[in-house]
């Protein structure tokens, strides 16, 4: 089989020419518009509010957070599906935000996307073969028809499906198979980078595991880099070399997976990790949970200072007044918290709060 994308380079994170993707201070606001006769903007939803990160060739960055934290908007702003309000998205040395639509199209061949819903993301009226062939036509990569057909067959086999499926239609396939078809379509144009937005969330556990393995196999074979967006910390750990934790439009902590999970520093990361159910009754009966009170505030009106302070068990007066910058604390490990040091020194046990709601062990 001929290589489908650029062959895997050396270990991820070691590029000489800078990262594959460099996102700098990315901002995306959505206007809130009122009025039927005179339309006027009365505010904005600050979905993504100054997010920066890099992804190297062949690397996976996990972007994790709860609903409404801006992780999906970050993905679409990188893909230019949403025009960023400001900031730079530098892919292979070129700032996508500044390119014209036509120039973007050329770059976008190297960037593809996988969506959460494998039922909504495949056109039900096209055969699987047509679905996978379409990006080749869009990007004018076609040779003779027989060559395209061979390529479709080759892609189907690459994602673990039979080449005979090309003549069938999406409704004939299960969710897991559809997600494989989505991967085949994404890989058709030999991308070096794929945004995976919750690719296994709609699937059953045993099928999700198959897709996770496929994703990792493809990375090993083809050297493709992923931005892996998910709310599931266990899945993110499995696939990601590095992880960025988002809360209300900001990255609050970022670190290599091997550092973040044993040593979470931001109170929000601590709470998230302590909330993940573990398939072991022994662990479950002993663990201490950092149970957060309240819900995520609206991104249209985010709290002052540290956006997490109204829910943070460790919050102090300074947190409401002054926004903590994302500060490097260790190799590749950065955290946006004024008091991470004190919290870690205290063993990460939340203090009893004045309102009488201690974080209870469960």
């Amino acid at each position: 089989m001929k290589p489908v994308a650029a062959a895997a380079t050396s270990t991820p994170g070691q590029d000489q020419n800078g990262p594959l993707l460099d996102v700098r201070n990315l901002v995306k606001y959505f206007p809130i518009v009122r009025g039927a006769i005179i339309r006027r903007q009365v505010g904005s939803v600050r979905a993504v509010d100054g997010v920066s990160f890099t992804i190297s060739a062949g690397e996976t960055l996990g972007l994790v957070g709860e609903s409404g934290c801006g992780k999906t908007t970050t993905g679409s702003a990188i893909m230019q599906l949403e025009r960023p309000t400001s900031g730079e998205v530098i892919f292979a040395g070129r700032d996508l935000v500044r390119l014209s639509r036509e120039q973007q199209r050329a770059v976008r061949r190297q960037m593809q996307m996988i969506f959460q819903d494998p039922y909504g993301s495949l056109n039900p009226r096209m055969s699987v073969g047509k679905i996978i062939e379409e990006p080749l036509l869009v990007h004018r990569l076609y040779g003779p028809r027989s060559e395209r057909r061979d390529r479709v067959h080759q892609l189907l086999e690459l994602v673990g499906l039979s080449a005979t499926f090309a003549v069938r239609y999406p409704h004939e396939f299960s969710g897991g198979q559809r997600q494989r078809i989505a991967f085949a379509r994404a890989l058709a144009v030999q991308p070096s980078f794929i945004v995976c937005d919750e690719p296994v969330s709609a699937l059953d556990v045993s099928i999700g595991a198959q897709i996770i393995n496929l994703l990792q196999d493809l990375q090993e074979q083809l050297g493709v880099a992923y931005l892996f967006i998910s709310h599931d910390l266990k899945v993110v750990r499995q696939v990601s070399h590095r992880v960025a934790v988002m809360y209300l439009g900001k990255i609050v902590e970022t670190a290599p997976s091997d550092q973040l999970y044993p040593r979470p520093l931001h109170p929000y990361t601590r709470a998230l990790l302590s909330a993940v159910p573990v398939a072991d009754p022994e662990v479950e009966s002993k663990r201490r949970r950092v149970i957060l009170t309240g819900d995520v505030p609206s991104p249209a009106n985010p709290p002052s200072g540290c956006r997490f302070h109204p829910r943070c068990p460790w919050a102090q007066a300074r947190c409401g007044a002054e926004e903590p910058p994302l500060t490097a604390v260790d190799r590749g490990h950065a955290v946006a918290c004024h008091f991470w040091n004190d919290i870690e020194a205290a063993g990460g046990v939340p203090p009893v709060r004045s309102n009488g709601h201690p974080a209870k062990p469960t």
Partner: protein
Amino acid sequence: MSVAEPLLTVQDLEVQFKTDEGIVRAVNGISYEVKAGASVGLVGESGCGKSVSSLALMRLIPQPAGRIVNGRIRFQGNDMLALSQAEMREIRGKHIAMIFQDPMNSLNPVLTIGRQIDEAQTLHLGVNAKEARRRTIDLLDIVGIPSPADRANDYPHQLSGGMQQRAMIAMAISCQPALLIADEPSTALDVTIQAQVIELLARLRRDLKMAVILITHDLALVAGFCEQVMVMYAGYVVESAPAREVFRNPRHPYTLGLMGSIPKITGDRRARLTAIPGAPPNMVHLPPGCPFAARCPFVLEECRAALPALASVGLNHLARCIVDVKTGKPR
């Protein structure tokens, strides 16, 4: 009702649905008991029959397509399948309550949540409107909704998903049911909110001495919550044991596969998941033998011929498999 009789006994329950493709055998003879105050986890993937089997307890199988074709359900000494519709209405909501995955679809959007919680109580407990509202505010407080007197006048859309689920739970426990069926109660919620809801359910179970059947696809959720676990596959119970036993000593290949499919939060990150190959069988054309045979790494010739019995493999531990998963040889 004798002292020794469990709260709920299900025997050989079979549920089928007529569809255009043929008869879907959703539940194929499951039996279990729930003691008063116990917590039982029903675990499995989509289409395994976990939800249908508990809808059958409430006699809420969609008619006329669905039908309980066999089995007995005894609850508090009543033969549930022999009760009249009026008697069932008395049991539903009052003695057995249910909460679902999606609170937004379970709450009436045009009534305030207070009104909806009042209604259950005036109907089942015969209290007057004023007393019902007093109790409702107390219930909302118990489930951790701040300023409950004000929130009672809110409509469902004014609450977040986590708060809606709390309101659903308040409604479910309003008549102090002996049994609460929680069908994926936290699946639609964020991780931190999910932890809150599960913690709330655990607390209420203790305080109200209420039995809970937790239906979920998430094996990990069951680990912290349930004493007894049943793993379902293709309409069959394939393994049943105390929670610790299931996790420490899984005896059915499907349970093993399910555990291998869940990424870990600690340990070696580079180890690949041991995913289960293939997909669950078509429920219209179930194979004659073990329904898991086609995906099973331990499969033997006999497995495809006849359905293995749910047999004892240890103390209170049942597995529907003829292979010892530790040796790979027939038991």
